[in-house]
């Protein structure tokens, strides 16, 4: 697509129509995971390990099975053996084998005729454990003497001499590091830590599974990706993917946490054992916190050199990240890729290790790895700016990654909007707002690479010229609206004439989930291509009708027109007319596109926050908050703003109060929303937004994903604002009041 086609004079793109699923969602009609029922349905409950690390000696379900109405109990013995690699890990996490690896690890499950009966039966399943030593902290897990959680699981990349809990090592970099640090006027290094957080979607995981003795099954489930659920469930249960049909319900938030399986195969296994009766399984909130996929927790060393004029001469990071008792779940690659992505630095060295600990198997959470990396690097950049008396935005602009500059992780950047975002942040009135006593301002930038992924979209013209679009990416935040806008724009028809349907696994080719900020980018790109294909066919129908060459027909404003005077004089044939006659002109008209779209547009943003800190209690109040981010092109600006605001507030929560708190017994102590403190409405001001548009040449309408970057800058921006307000730099998240107060007191003494 040539750049000049990225025009701004769109009819629909950039407008803010009502979302197609709005009515269902404000009336309570929309059906989420737990809202689905089926005739003959049973209810399931899961028995979970109360220990962080324990050998399972014996499971006795006889008392449970003796209860009238209890239909099936399953343990790991009911699953196929012989799985390897990630399939084995998924199975192991679905149901513990010999050893329970974390507090909350499933060890048995039961299906019964009512929810209460299933819960009663679960309490009657007796599990005998031999408690093993455990470790939950990332640094402790790699220290000498820490219990080895899965000895022998380290991959060959790990340098010799490291603890067996260190299972992966990566490193990359460029330039002459020593020369870079030598050229700096100021070199600082420090260690930063972040605690694990949870996506905190309000809808607990829920599914309804049915599987017969023939291994054919169906599932209704709240998920970001029905094909992922299908593939993973089939692998865990040893059935063929095509025999499992997975239908996504509406989804009550995911943020990455619903891109994988946790308990879904249990419903199928229970159903099979209960003679094929459908089994509903809904997690409690406590189960969600204990046994789904929080983020990694981290410990990160950062060293940066800067000249007096703000030029960054060299940077070095060493990240340690634990993502639970399962390999591959700590986003070390992502974190390193993001660490210096906003900067053009002559010499960089990145290293990271993945570490096992007795915690649940981490899952993706909005820009996985990037917020932690930003906390470390952006905080250190701010520390240097403060020490050298430099403006944080000017310094970032001085070192900013630009079009064509070599990225910190290798490839050159194409068209990117970091500079534009920083400039918009600097120009915003929030950046000049006066600050009072105990108030401070923080700035940070953020990055996410974004993702294309396997994509398959179909589109069909109706008999009245309206259009149905089938997509495979569940709508987590308004993507039906953005996809309908792009489709209608392309076809030249009203927005209301397009209906976007999220379909089940039997209806399309494989789609990756709604993750990686890809739904509007990838499904959108495919929907546009599918629409163009349908336009081609409609032009051919018109050409045949008029007896001219298809090349002589052009499509505009929802109708086929003769392309210029030489093509002949015919009145336009509208999409409605073509649709009405298609049964007699060659049959149904549809468009289809499938690809793994390239041309992904990288995403950059800059945040500015003002806080006030109570010097006597350490409590932080957010006074104003600004999100600036490059959207490429905002298809439905209201939902783009929504992504910015939601991401920023999740980041604020991560910065201030959210954390997994483990006791010395390795049990999670705060598995309810009372104690896992996500931001509430009264904690926040309005979240100001600026949508920067540097169109992505890799998308027909210039879209770059907007979902993830917004969670990245708040962590360091909040830390820098608190430092500005108090003079105390916090290098450990969350910056909860006890820690802030202690830091203020330590500064007073020091």
């Amino acid at each position, binding site marked *: 697509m040539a750049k000049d086609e990225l025009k701004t004079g769109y009819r629909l793109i950039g407008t803010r129509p009502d979302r197609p699923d709005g009515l269902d969602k404000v009336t309570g009609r929309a059906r989420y995971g737990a809202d689905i029922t089926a005739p003959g349905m049973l209810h399931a409950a899961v028995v979970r390990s109360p220990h962080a690390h324990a050998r399972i000696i014996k499971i006795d379900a006889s008392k449970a099975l003796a209860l009238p109405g209890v239909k099936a109990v399953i343990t790991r013995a009911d699953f196929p053996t012989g799985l390897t690699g990630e399939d084995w890990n998924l199975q192991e996490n679905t149901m513990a084998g010999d050893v329970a690896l974390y507090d909350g690890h499933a060890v048995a499950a039961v299906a019964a005729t009512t929810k209460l009966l299933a819960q009663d039966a679960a309490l009657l399943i007796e599990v005998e454990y031999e408690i093993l030593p455990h470790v939950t902290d990332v640094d402790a897990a790699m220290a000498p003497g820490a219990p080895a959680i899965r000895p022998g699981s380290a991959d*060959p*990349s790990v340098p010799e001499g490291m603890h067996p809990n260190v299972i992966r090592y*990566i*490193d*990359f970099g460029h330039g002459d590091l020593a020369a870079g640090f030598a050229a700096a006027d100021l070199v600082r290094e420090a260690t930063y830590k972040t605690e694990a957080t949870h*996506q905190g979607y309000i809808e607990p995981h829920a599914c309804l599974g049915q599987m017969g003795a023939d291994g054919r099954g169906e599932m209704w489930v709240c998920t970001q990706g029905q094909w992922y659920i299908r593939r993973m469930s089939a692998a865990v249960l040893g059935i063929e993917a095509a025999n499992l049909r997975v239908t996504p319900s509406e989804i009550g938030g*995911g*943020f*990455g*946490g619903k*891109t994988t399986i946790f308990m879904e195969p249990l419903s199928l296994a229970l159903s099979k054992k209960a003679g094929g009766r459908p089994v509903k399984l809904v997690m409690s909130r406590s189960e969600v916190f204990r046994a789904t996929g929080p983020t990694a927790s981290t410990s990160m060393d950062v060293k940066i050199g800067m000249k007096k004029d703000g030029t960054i001469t060299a940077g070095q990071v060493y990240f340690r990240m634990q993502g639970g008792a399962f390999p591959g779940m700590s986003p070390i*690659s*992502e974190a390193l*890729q993001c660490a210096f992505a906003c900067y053009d630095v002559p010499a960089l060295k990145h290293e990271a290790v993945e570490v096992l600990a007795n915690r649940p198997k981490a899952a*993706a*959470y*909005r*820009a*996985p790895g990037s917020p932690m990396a930003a906390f470390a690097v952006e905080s250190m950049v701010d520390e240097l700016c403060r020490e050298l008396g430099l403006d944080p935005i000017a310094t970032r602009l001085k070192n900013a990654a630009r079009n*064509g500059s070599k990225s910190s*992780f*290798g*490839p*050159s*950047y*194409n068209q990117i909007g970091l500079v534009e975002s920083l400039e918009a942040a600097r120009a915003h009135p929030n950046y000049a707002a006066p600050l009072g006593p105990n108030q401070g301002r923080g700035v940070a930038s953020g990055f*996410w*690479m*974004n*993702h*294309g*992924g396997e994509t398959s979209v179909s589109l069909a013209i109706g008999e009245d010229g309206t259009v149905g679009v089938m997509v495979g990416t569940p709508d987590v935040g308004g993507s039906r609206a953005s996809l309908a806008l792009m489709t209608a724009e392309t076809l030249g028809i009203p927005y209301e004439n397009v209906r976007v349907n999220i379909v089940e696994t039997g209806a399309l080719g494989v789609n*990756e989930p709604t*993750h*990686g*900020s*890809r739904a509007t980018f990838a499904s959108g790109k495919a929907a546009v291509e599918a629409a163009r294909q349908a336009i081609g066919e409609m032009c051919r129908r018109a050409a045949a009708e008029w007896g001219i060459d298809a090349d002589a027909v052009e499509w505009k404003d929802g109708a086929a027109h003769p392309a210029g005077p030489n093509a002949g004089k015919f009145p336009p044939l509208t999409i409605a007319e073509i649709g009405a006659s298609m049964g007699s002109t060659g049959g149904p008209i549809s468009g289809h596109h499938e*690809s*793994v*779209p*390239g*041309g*992904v547009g990288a995403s950059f943003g800059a945040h500015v926050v003002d806080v006030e800190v109570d010097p006597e209690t350490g409590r932080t109040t957010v006074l104003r908050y600004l999100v600036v981010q490059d959207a490429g092109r905002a298809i439905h600006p209201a939902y783009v703003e929504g992504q910015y605001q939601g991401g920023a507030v999740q980041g604020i929560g991560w910065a201030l109060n959210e954390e997994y708190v483990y006791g010395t017994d390795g049990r999670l102590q705060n598995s309810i929303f009372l104690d896992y403190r996500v931001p509430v409405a009264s904690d926040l001001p309005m979240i100001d937004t600026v949508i920067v548009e540097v169109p992505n040449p*890799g998308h027909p309408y210039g879209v770059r994903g907007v*979902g*993830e970057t917004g969670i990245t800058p708040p962590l360091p921006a909040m830390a820098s604002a608190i430092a500005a307000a108090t003079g105390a730099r916090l290098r450990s998240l969350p910056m909860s009041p006890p820690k802030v107060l202690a830091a203020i007191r330590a500064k007073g003494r020091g």
Partner: protein
Amino acid sequence: MVEVNLWSGLRRLTDGAQVVSVEGTTLREVLRNLAVTHPALEPTLKSGVSVSLNGVIETNLSTPISAGDEVYLIHRVKGG
């Protein structure tokens, strides 16, 4: 010859080389030849890598490539 930049995890499969030169006029040929010259890379290439061609993620294996193009194999990263 096309210079292919590898991410660090692949280096132990290429005897430490971070940049390897490979024959090929399309992305497909380059990846195929890479697996021939460095057989240890084959499983990783098969399981899926992202290719950055001149700063843009390229998924069309038939895309022509010539000497001087910037080619990076990068870890496939998805997101939340």
